[in-house]
């Protein structure tokens, strides 16, 4: 870790942070790298502000307003009550008032008012309406890339106003006038050209999987397989590509493989669908998100699988659970031939898609899996609810299953578990600070400061309960915490996956 050129926030005594006084402009110096020509072109956007960028921006805004009720209603309904002002981890960590959810919305709302409402057209000073200038556009760029689209604000707003929807619309308009973000857009190119966010080609994937099989066998003496592109397999596992490569992600991949092995399941990975992540979500462009999701449908049809299971990844699970059915017909209840084509193939005894935690918990309940819990005794564990899983999806049949199922799994495979402060978990969970397309080095200051509320609550259980392991179910959370932990004086080996714990304790024969 290089010495940071910014101040690392201090821990506070209580798990829940005090609300800072506003510091105007505290983060205005942060600007994520802008996407270059090749990525923008590939995605069908311009790569610099043209002559008529302003007209184009307003035009696009008008289209978004017609297509998305969320954006229209949210821009109209806010009463500036201030209830959301202290709910965003980026505000708590930076004190920049433009990181308060309502102020972030206001960046767009003032332009919306100016061009689309009566009050703003005729009395702009009265309602806080403003012309769209390059300065405003730059503010959009900065602060729409200091929002991880985590939806914490929407839980606490009396009208459910979800700033993430505004951020997505903002990024869509920015892209449309040639100001895309380098990090997200290059990933969107890689996933479409190569098949995954890391840009890992099929043969390399095959090698990696073979290597893992050898490692597991050397370790356990059991020939656990990680099949790739196996036609006729029952289950297709779609997982974030970080699981193939990065630490600690790969430990969870080993965990899934062991679970499948223990259950005697026929399963496969796919080189075409070697990425569960879908950064299309972050940019708010339906068509891009659909194109990226389509690879899963294509792979499922081609391999003829009956079930689709998704690995540990927060935003991927949001897209899979909430959007796959809409975007690609993976799910049930479609009456059109397009979605029926796939539905006919799927096994209707199971929900589609299914989260790996739902799958594992189901097997645990049926008594199919055996564990030696004491193998996890060196770990004192806490669990971080990932924002997209917590507030934009579900597991199991009951609302809130996304909170109980992962915890149930942890308790089934380990003896020492402590939750963090109740105000910082469940639906009130704090984002890791690196979600929503912010997981890039050029935003390190935002990421470190935005992680403060979570780190502070984590520190509290470290102090009180001696916690030494943060269990996660998200590839972005894993990467973010591994990077950010050292800044706060923790060792990155304290970060891991829920299926890593499963992997440690599971008994194979």
């Amino acid at each position: 870790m290089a010495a940071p050129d910014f101040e690392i926030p201090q821990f506070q005594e209580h798990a829940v942070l005090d609300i800072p006084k506003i510091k105007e402009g505290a983060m205005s110096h942060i600007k994520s790298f802008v996407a270059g020509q090749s990525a923008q072109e590939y995605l069908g956007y311009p790569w610099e502000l043209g002559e008529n960028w302003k007209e184009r921006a307003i035009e696009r805004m008008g289209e978004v307003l017609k297509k998305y009720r969320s954006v229209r209603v949210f821009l109209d309904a806010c009463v500036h009550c201030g209830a959301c002002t202290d709910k965003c981890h980026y505000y708590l960590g930076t004190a920049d008032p433009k990181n308060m959810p309502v102020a972030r919305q206001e960046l767009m709302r003032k332009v919306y008012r100016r061009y689309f409402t009566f009050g703003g057209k005729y009395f702009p000073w009265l309602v806080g309406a403003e012309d769209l200038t390059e300065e405003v556009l730059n503010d959009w760029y900065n602060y729409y890339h200091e929002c991880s689209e985590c939806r914490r604000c929407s839980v606490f707003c009396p009208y459910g106003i979800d700033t993430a929807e505004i951020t997505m619309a903002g990024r869509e308009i920015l892209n449309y006038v040639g100001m895309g973000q380098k990090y997200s857009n290059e990933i969107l190119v890689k996933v479409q050209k190569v098949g995954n966010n890391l840009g890992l080609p099929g043969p390399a994937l095959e090698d990696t999987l073979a290597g893992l099989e050898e490692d597991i066998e050397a370790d356990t003496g059991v020939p656990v397989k990680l099949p790739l592109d196996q036609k006729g397999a029952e289950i297709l596992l779609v997982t974030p590509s970080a699981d193939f490569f990065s630490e600690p992600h790969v430990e969870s991949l080993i965990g899934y493989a062991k679970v499948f092995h223990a259950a005697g399941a026929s399963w496969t990975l796919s080189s075409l669908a070697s990425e569960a992540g879908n950064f299309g979500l972050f940019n708010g462009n339906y068509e891009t998100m659909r194109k990226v999701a389509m690879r899963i449908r294509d792979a499922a049809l081609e391999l003829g699988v009956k079930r689709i299971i998704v690995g540990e990844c927060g935003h991927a699970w949001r897209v899979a659970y909430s959007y796959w059915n809409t975007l690609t017909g993976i799910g049930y209840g479609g009456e059109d031939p397009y979605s029926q084509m796939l539905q006919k193939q799927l096994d209707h005894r199971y929900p589609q898609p299914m989260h790996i935690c739902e799958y594992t918990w189901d097997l645990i309940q049926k008594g199919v899996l055996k564990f030696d819990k004491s193998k996890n005794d060196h770990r004192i564990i806490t669990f971080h609810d990932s924002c997209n899983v917590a507030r934009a999806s579900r597991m199991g049949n009951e609302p809130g299953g996304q909170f109980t199922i992962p915890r149930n799994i942890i308790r089934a495979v380990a003896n020492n578990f402590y939750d963090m402060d109740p105000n910082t978990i469940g639906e009130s969970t704090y984002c890791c600070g690196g979600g929503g397309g912010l997981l890039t080095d050029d935003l390190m200051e935002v990421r470190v400061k935005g992680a403060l509320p979570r780190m502070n609550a984590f520190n509290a259980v470290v102090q009180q309960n001696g916690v030494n392991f943060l269990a996660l179910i998200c590839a972005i959370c894993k990467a973010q915490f591994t990077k950010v932990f050292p800044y706060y004086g923790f060792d990155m080996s304290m970060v891991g996956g829920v299926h890593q714990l499963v992997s440690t304790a599971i008994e194979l024969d």
Partner: protein
Amino acid sequence: MSTLTIIYTVLFYVATLVFIGGLAYRIYEYTRTPAPLKIPTTPAPTTSAGVVYRMAREVVFFESLFKSNKWIWVFGWLFHFGLLLVLLRHIRYFQEPVWFWVEFLQPYGKYASFMMVVGLLGLWARRFLVDRVRYISTPSDHLMLALLVGIGVSGMMMTFVAHTDIVALKAFVLGLMFFDWQPLPADPFLLIHLGLVAVLMIVFPVSKLLHAPGIFFSPSRNQVDNPRERRHIAPWAAALEREQA
């Protein structure tokens, strides 16, 4: 008929038209705009009945606000519940004979005006005292509060201090309703009160008062959490799908 009566008569017809027409247009616009993706803030109900229940808790108890900030909740709820009682009390100006429960509510409605004004003043104080709320407040936020406080206080003046001729007032209101115009008592508090109410009605469809219909259209609150069981697709998205299939 006096000029004053004519002005107020016309004003109220205009205000009513703008209020109803404007609001109807907004609601039409919201209905016409699809929500292409499933975005209920979870955990969310898995049935429509559950959604109705969730919405009812939001509208009646301000559930999310309660989780969020107890001060705003207290003041906001005092104001809205006070306003509701006061409005119900006002039904008596629009009917003859008056429903018994409207009669019954009269004394409560009178004192509810205090709740309303206290709530408003509390919310207003936050706009000065809390730095975060000060930062996001616009002139129109202050004016809106001034308008509502003005309506409340002028009304209370007539209830508790300088009574107006309510028989004549009722004749005026019924006259408006049945196009049989009657003179309006030239009482300063009444004129202020009615003038401000008319302004409120006119700005309603073009202001943040749209939060009232807005909440019912908020996809994060009104959607059922069942995306795996039902295929949810907007017309424009279905068209896109057909085009690319």
